[in-house]
């Protein structure tokens, strides 16, 4: 195992701050949250994605890593205490480099919707690009979102995911140190 980079400088306080950021992002969909804790994850892992994994993943959590992130596997194994799972269809957390077919990830059940996957997807930008309008719990008024890095048919694919509520995956988009969450309860229109 090659180790050269630390995790959070202050594991408790930094993880709490990141947890707060994810919670706010999930309850205020479309509102970007910045991770301000100093963090130097191994490439190609970005700061926001790395912080979310350090915060939410531990030895009791399953994580699937896309091959693209193989270079970060040892770092995650060491700091999260998890051995990345080879099975994308059952993992609780999935770190992908391009949007997978959402229906192939763990969907949860009507009795246990919490058993679905949380998908982390790095994108190029959360301030420019394809424009969407978000509606749903946590949003008083339709909220705009611009993303560079999603496939052209994203709105249709998201609609299929949203239609399964309370089942379905939750998506966290990460760009550098910033993240935006799209919980499954959210409906999304192209603007």
């Amino acid at each position, binding site marked *: 195992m090659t180790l050269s980079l630390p995790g959070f400088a202050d594991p408790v306080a930094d993880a709490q701050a990141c947890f707060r950021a994810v919670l706010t992002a999930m309850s205020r969909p479309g509102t970007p949250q910045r991770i301000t804790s100093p963090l130097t994850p191994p490439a190609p892992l970005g700061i926001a994605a790395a912080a979310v994994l350090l915060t939410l993943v531990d030895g009791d959590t399953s994580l699937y890593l896309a091959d693209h992130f193989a270079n970060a596997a040892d770092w995650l194994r*060491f700091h999260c205490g998890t051995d990345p799972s080879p099975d994308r269809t059952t993992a609780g957390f999935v770190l992908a480099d391009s949007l997978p077919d959402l229906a192939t990830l763990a969907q949860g059940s009507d009795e246990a919707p919490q058993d679905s996957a949380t998908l982390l997807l790095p994108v190029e930008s959360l301030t420019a690009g394809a424009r969407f309008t978000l509606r749903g719990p946590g949003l008083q008024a339709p909220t705009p979102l611009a993303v560079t890095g999603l496939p052209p048919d994203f709105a249709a694919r998201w609609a299929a995911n949203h239609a399964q509520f309370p089942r379905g995956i939750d998506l966290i988009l990460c760009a550098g140190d910033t993240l935006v969450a799209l919980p499954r309860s959210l409906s999304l229109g192209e603007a």
Partner: protein
Amino acid sequence: MAYVAVKGGERAIDNAHAWLAEARRGNPAVPDLTLAQIQQQMGRAVDRVMAEGALYDPELAALAIKQAQGDLIEAAFLLRAYRTTLPRFGYAAPVDTAAMALRRRISAVYKDLPGGQLLGPTYDYTHRLLDFLLAAGATPPPAAEAAEPAAAMPRVADILAQEGLIETHTDTGTEPGDLTREPLAFPAGRDIRLQALARGDEGFLLAMGYSTQRGWGGSHPFVGELRVGEVTVEITPPELGFAIDIGDITLTECALVNQFKGSKTVPPQFTSGYGLTFGHAERKAMGMALVDRAMRAEELGEDATAPAQNIEFVLYHSDNIEGTGFVEHLKLPHYVDFQSELEAIRRMREDTK
């Protein structure tokens, strides 16, 4: 059962806590008790709290005992609560009790067993007369040392097994269940039973073990071996990929040898009950072994009629943290429950008039 939030106790509770703190400290003219004193001079209490708190950390156990004013069940409760704040780093390799650095090792079945009988620091042959020299604060002379150190000694169960006279245990390789992760469910395998007994209440295990001796599920036990000493704890961190020692812990192990008449498939042979517990705790380890054997009645084709043989009964009532929680919650306000009972009684009395 229903509960109702009642306000107004806040100041009373604050004042009660303040008085508790003062009462815990006692007369300030008497020196404050240090954790080192508790750890060094109240070792058996520390061991019991670690065992029933299911957390090996003598310093924390000493703090818990100080905080609980010596109420050992309350102290074990404090340890159980504390452990929930810590992450689980992993699992240790099973301890090798055959390699134990022995302080004490006795057998009631073989006088001349390989390695011999080591009495160790035991109360067994004391006269149970109060020692007023201790009250005067006497320092004892240093313990005697032999010229040659005692070596690691084979376990009596392994000696008997070599002759084929006792059931042999083989590792099925199955991952054991874990009560700290999954709630108790039935049927409970021996892995779960042993974990529950290891953290079970010493008094409960003593009473249940005693009941088997008095005929409530008897199985003719002999103490095959009782050993106390230190074993090495070994883990294999994934980032290293090889096993490392992380320290030593004190354990007490009791292997009972019990009569077994045999069955259709098994010839007559000895069976065993097993006890393993944190610290120096012989009564606990023996009670555990008696109850472990009793709970194997059904597995061994014996009648399971006595309380100690009833797995659900034993496991549901062995945990003193759960027990104290459920019993002591009766002190909490039940004003609404009681009001409804009161009304029901009054109505019934009206009806009979």
